[in-house]
């Protein structure tokens, strides 16, 4: 294998100017909530970084995460960062197919043992389920993951399916789908959820890894705090309308036209942690809430099973109306029975009453 180029060399080859590169470094610093004084350090670190080998495994997924990544913006430095990563195996993107593709994976695993980054998108069928539910080149997902894990430095679970099980794990979960974290116990796992994740978040996590050579700070769901530290609601440009109590009540009412808060239309922004509101989509053009649609909460666990996308966050999930009716009727019957019993007891007491006259009492004395 030819010696790996540094990132700086590759960027210059791709015609990226120094100015463009520094702008990217500044954006990375602000994304990671680092002070501007860190920009030169990031630039120096990125400049010298060697292309890390990345093996990308796609399991029970829809390719949406890869689509998000590749169709995002072109050409930008973020794109190039991905070009510059040595993406040694990605069965959707690579030219090789069949046994050659698998050979490339095995070669990359051998050459970079202990050093490569393993990226996974998609969930895995449950460990006790039929392994035939999802295979690549006849190899079950579990087997492929285990083989690739041995020499991996860390695992990045891209997309909600890999991070939390996602759509395959939604009720009734026919394949018993599990997340990467459910399977991987002995290697660091970074979750980059989203359906799909914001492209800049994927590249940002990789950039962070390149710059600091270590894994980012994570929240309890293993999500990088730099991108998932704040909720959509807290960063939403429609937040002032929520605070004022101005809500759209249907998708075409005056409130919707005026761009008011979408809480009543089912927005899950308050309970969703992601970077959409700050980074936006399509080169920063817009994002779901800006386009007039409530946040679905796609970067949170179980978002498919968290009730209707169009039911407000405060509305209950079960069947409370029938519960209320059923329990109310039962209660009324119990109350009626208790009252009837009490009345009957009173009637019995009255009927069995044995009056005593004063004379009788005096006789007893």
């Amino acid at each position: 294998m030819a010696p790996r180029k540094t990132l700086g060399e590759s960027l210059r080859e791709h015609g990226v100017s120094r100015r463009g590169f520094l702008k990217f470094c500044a954006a990375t610093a602000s994304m990671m909530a680092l002070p501007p004084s860190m920009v030169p350090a990031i630039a120096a670190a990125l400049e010298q970084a060697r292309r890390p080998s990345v093996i990308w495994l796609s399991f029970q997924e829809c390719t949406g995460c890869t689509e998000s990544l590749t169709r995002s913006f072109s050409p930008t430095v973020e794109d190039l960062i991905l070009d510059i990563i040595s993406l040694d195996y990605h069965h959707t993107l690579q030219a090789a197919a069949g046994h050659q593709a698998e050979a490339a994976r095995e070669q990359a695993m051998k050459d970079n043992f202990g050093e490569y980054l393993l990226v996974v998108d998609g969930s895995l069928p449950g460990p006790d389920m039929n392994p035939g539910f999802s295979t690549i080149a006849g190899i079950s997902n579990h087997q492929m993951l285990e083989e690739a894990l041995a020499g991996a430095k860390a695992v990045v679970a891209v997309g909600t399916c890999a991070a939390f099980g996602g759509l395959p794990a939604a009720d009734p979960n026919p394949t018993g789908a599990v997340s990467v974290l459910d399977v991987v116990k002995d290697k660091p796992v970074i979750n980059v959820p989203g359906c799909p994740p914001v492209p800049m978040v994927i590249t940002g996590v990789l950039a962070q890894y390149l710059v600091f050579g270590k894994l980012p700070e994570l929240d309890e769901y293993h999500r990088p705090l730099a991108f998932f530290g704040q909720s959509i609601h807290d960063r939403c440009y429609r937040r002032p309308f929520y605070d004022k109590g101005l809500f759209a009540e249907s998708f075409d009412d005056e409130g919707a036209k005026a761009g008011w808060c979408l809480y009543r239309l089912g927005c899950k922004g308050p309970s969703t942690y992601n970077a959409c509101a700050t980074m936006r989509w399509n080169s920063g053009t817009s994002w779901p809430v800006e386009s007039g649609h409530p946040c679905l909460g796609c970067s949170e666990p179980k978002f498919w099973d968290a009730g209707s996308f169009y039911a407000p966050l405060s509305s209950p999930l079960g069947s409370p109306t029938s519960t209320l009716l059923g329990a109310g009727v039962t209660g009324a019957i119990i109350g009626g029975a208790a009252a009837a019993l009490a009345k009957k007891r009173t009637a019995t007491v009255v009927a069995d009453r044995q009056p005593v006259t004063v004379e009788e009492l005096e006789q007893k004395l």
Partner: protein
Amino acid sequence: MSDPMGFLLWVKGPAFDWALAIFALGMLARIVEIFILGRKKNYAEAKGGEWGPGFKTILTRSIADPGTFARAPFDVVVGWIWHLGFLIALFLFIPHVELFKGLLGIAWPGLPNPVVDAVTAITILGLIAALVHRLQHPVKKRISTPEDYLVWAVTFLPVLTGYLAYHRLINPYPLVLGLHILSVELFLVVFPFTKLTHAFTAFIARWYNGAIFGRKGVES
């Protein structure tokens, strides 16, 4: 259920259904029993109607009579403040209106969030003042039972956690929202078996008072 989102989905789903079932069953059992038992039949000749004075008394008894106010101004004023605040926060906060819409299929206009926020802050202060007064007033302290403190706690917690959730003072949000809903469920479960039932029975008792006096032809 072990993670914040799992916890939130549990309190919004099965836990809410259970709490609601206990509340509805308990309250309906008590109210139906009260109505079926009714009052002892009065054989005396009626000197006036029952319905009019009954409903009138439901309203008039909301205002404390001058004697009561003179004896316990603190209880009357603070009691009014936090009861009103509690009801405003419960029924006029937009997310709560959405909850009732999801539950009962009916909705009504709400208040702007900052108004509800201010009312909630006042309610929290009112409830704390009520507790401090209960602990400091020699007579009140002596006649307070564990039930009184339980009822205070299950009333206070939803207001407090609601305030914390609205201002996002505990992270992550699904955790604090889940705690808020859980505290409401505790309130619902305790409700039918404690003096919290006064939210319904107070009005029944006032009606009976008014009706009895009305029948006797005297003002209540």
